[in-house]
């Protein structure tokens, strides 16, 4: 039979059936095409992300916190990476031996680790923070599953308690919490960045795709502080507080030309590297945040104002007999009764009656203005957290007795930094200089608050106070002329003056012929029976000033002769 004549071929099917099949296929292709266009062209973000997640990783780029340096580049605070160990409690099941070795490495009791790992309600628990990288490596070599490590920074302060109050410290997350660390947080803090990379099967980075955020290391901060002077100031202060069995003390050293704070020390203090047993009194940056009634150290300002107003001349004679002065029922006393004193001697012998008499010839408004002009009653602007402004009451509310007592530093409250800065006015020929905690490259512009002639006259009086016949013979330094003033004040307690509690202070500058440094010393509650500023604070001043002048290579302005002290028991006692 011929194949072509097969009857099967004769069979004719309806045309629509083949057409139908064709359309079905075409429709299928169109559908696939559409889907392909949709996935690859229109809505490809999701798949692209899925694909990328197989090989690309976002990596954290760490940033360092800036260092804090002293003016000569010595490192005072450095951050270095440490590790913290954390765990997922549900997943970490160390064996008994592993647990024992982990506990030994972390220096924690086993029971404590067990307790933290048993807390399965949480999925994140720190076992220990801030351990050294070497220990962390040994922990990692124990291969405990569910145990992870984090990179953190820890701040170290090599100088320990010496500069604690200036530097402050950072918390566990390397964020400043006190002092300079807090004040300059923005500048010191680094900004960690991140970048996207391609990693291969072995976990090696093979390609950099993009930098999402560039890491920014924190900037180094160069302080005005001189580590040598700071160290000297701190050790002398510490010795003086111990020797006088005092409650506390403070020292401020200023550079007169630049207004820089070369040293700022407080006692009691703390070690910023180990803050586990810290109490509030240790934390106080007394020289900046606490105020006290300065006592006689304010007399030179009253005298300066009287000189400026033309009321008196340095050689004018003031009647101080009989050593007391009654104003409105209250009595002002001198410790050392003289019949009459010149204005210069009022400073030299620190006479309260003399200062009060001079003050009563001045208007309250002008006195108030003088106090404000030299920086009392307003924050000194160092940039420290919690700077005290001190207290100068408005002159309208002053009674005559108050005006008289303010002339010798009672009824007014200042901080030690304010006092040191105010004395720079005499040292700088009448200009008040802005203070700075960070190094200053160009000398700042001061604000004139009194005539150069007045400042020079007061300087000469302050020099008299620091000699054999003044209240502070112990402030003398071999080889340098010193000018300064003692202060001894009763402390106020519950609104009244305590009979047996004193604040002893001394503020001065040297070399007197061309002043370079101001040093202010304050000793709070000396309790060995000696409380005069001239015996308690002046020797500390002399030690610090002598050492600082030598450290800065300041040329002597006096022959190198041993200093002269008055015979024992014949020192001029200052009025309290």
């Amino acid at each position, binding site marked *: 039979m011929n194949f072509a004549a097969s009857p099967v071929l004769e069979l004719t099917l309806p045309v629509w059936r083949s057409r139908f099949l064709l359309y079905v296929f075409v429709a299928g292709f169109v559908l696939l095409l559409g889907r392909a266009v949709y996935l690859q062209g229109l809505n490809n973000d999701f798949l692209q992300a899925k694909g990328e997640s197989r090989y690309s990783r976002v990596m954290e780029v760490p940033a360092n916190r800036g260092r804090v340096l002293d003016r000569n580049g010595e490192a005072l605070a*450095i951050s*270095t990476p440490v590790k913290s160990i954390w765990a997922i409690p549900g997943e970490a099941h160390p064996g008994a031996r592993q647990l024992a070795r982990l506990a030994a490495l972390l220096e924690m009791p086993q029971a404590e680790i067990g307790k933290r790992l048993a807390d399965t309600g949480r999925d994140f628990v720190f076992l220990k923070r801030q351990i050294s990288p070497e220990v962390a490596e040994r922990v990692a070599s124990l291969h405990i599953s569910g145990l992870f490590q984090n990179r953190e920074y820890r701040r170290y302060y090599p*100088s320990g308690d010496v500069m604690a109050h200036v530097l402050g410290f950072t918390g566990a997350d390397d964020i400043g919490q006190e002092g300079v660390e807090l004040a300059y947080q923005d500048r010191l803090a680094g900004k960690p960045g991140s970048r996207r990379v391609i990693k291969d099967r072995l976990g090696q980075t*093979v390609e950099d795709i993009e930098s999402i955020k560039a890491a920014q290391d924190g900037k180094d901060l160069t302080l005005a502080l001189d580590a040598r002077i700071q160290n000297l100031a701190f050790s002398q202060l510490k010795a003086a507080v111990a020797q006088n069995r005092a409650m506390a003390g403070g020292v401020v050293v200023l550079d007169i030309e630049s207004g820089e704070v070369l040293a700022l020390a407080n006692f009691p203090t703390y070690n910023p590297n180990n803050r586990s047993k810290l109490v509030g009194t240790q934390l106080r940056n007394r020289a900046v945040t606490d105020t006290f009634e300065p006592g006689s150290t304010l007399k030179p300002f009253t005298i300066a104002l009287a000189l400026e107003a033309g009321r008196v001349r340095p050689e004018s004679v003031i009647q101080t007999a009989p050593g007391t002065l009654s104003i409105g029922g209250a009595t002002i006393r001198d410790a050392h009764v003289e019949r009459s004193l010149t204005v210069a001697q009022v400073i030299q012998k620190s006479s309260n009656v003399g200062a009060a008499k001079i003050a009563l010839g001045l208007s309250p408004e002008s006195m108030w203005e003088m106090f404000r002009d030299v920086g009392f009653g307003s924050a000194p602007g160092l940039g420290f957290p919690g700077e005290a402004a001190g207290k100068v009451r408005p002159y309208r509310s002053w009674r005559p007795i108050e005006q008289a007592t303010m002339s010798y530093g009672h009824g007014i409250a200042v901080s030690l930094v304010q006092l040191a800065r105010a004395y720079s006015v005499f040292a700088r020929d009448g200009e008040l200089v802005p203070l700075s905690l960070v190094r200053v490259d160009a000398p700042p512009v001061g604000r004139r608050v009194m005539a150069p002639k007045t400042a020079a006259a007061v300087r000469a009086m302050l020099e008299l106070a620091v000699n054999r016949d003044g209240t502070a013979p112990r402030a003398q330094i071999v*080889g340098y002329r010193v000018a300064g003033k003692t202060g001894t004040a009763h402390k106020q307690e519950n609104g009244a003056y305590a009979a047996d509690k004193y604040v002893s202070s001394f503020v001065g500058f040297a070399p007197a012929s061309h002043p370079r440094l101001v040093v202010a010393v304050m000793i709070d509650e000396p309790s060995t029976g000696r409380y005069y500023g001239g015996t308690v604070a002046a020797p500390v001043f002399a030690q610090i000033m002598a050492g600082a002048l030598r450290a800065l290579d300041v040329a002597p302005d006096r022959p190198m002769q041993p200093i002269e002290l008055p015979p024992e028991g014949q020192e001029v006692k200052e009025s309290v």
Partner: protein
Amino acid sequence: MVRLNLLLLVVLAACALGLVTSQHRARTIFAELEQEQERSRQLGVEYGQLQLEASTWAVHARVERIASRQLHMRVPEAKRLQIARPEEAAR
């Protein structure tokens, strides 16, 4: 025509292989760069630690203690001091 096509095919294959090798080389070099950068970070960390160590050893209290106790150094007395001024020395 066929010959030209074959030639282009060979050129294409060569280019493709070249791309693969250069990509591979780029990646190995990049990995090396990455390692070196990591090393530089490590060295930076070590520098910080060494600086820390240096300033810990150079703490003034320690220097002073060694100077006075071990080396018996002290500040000279006033009468034994003599000041030499630069202008006098130049004369």
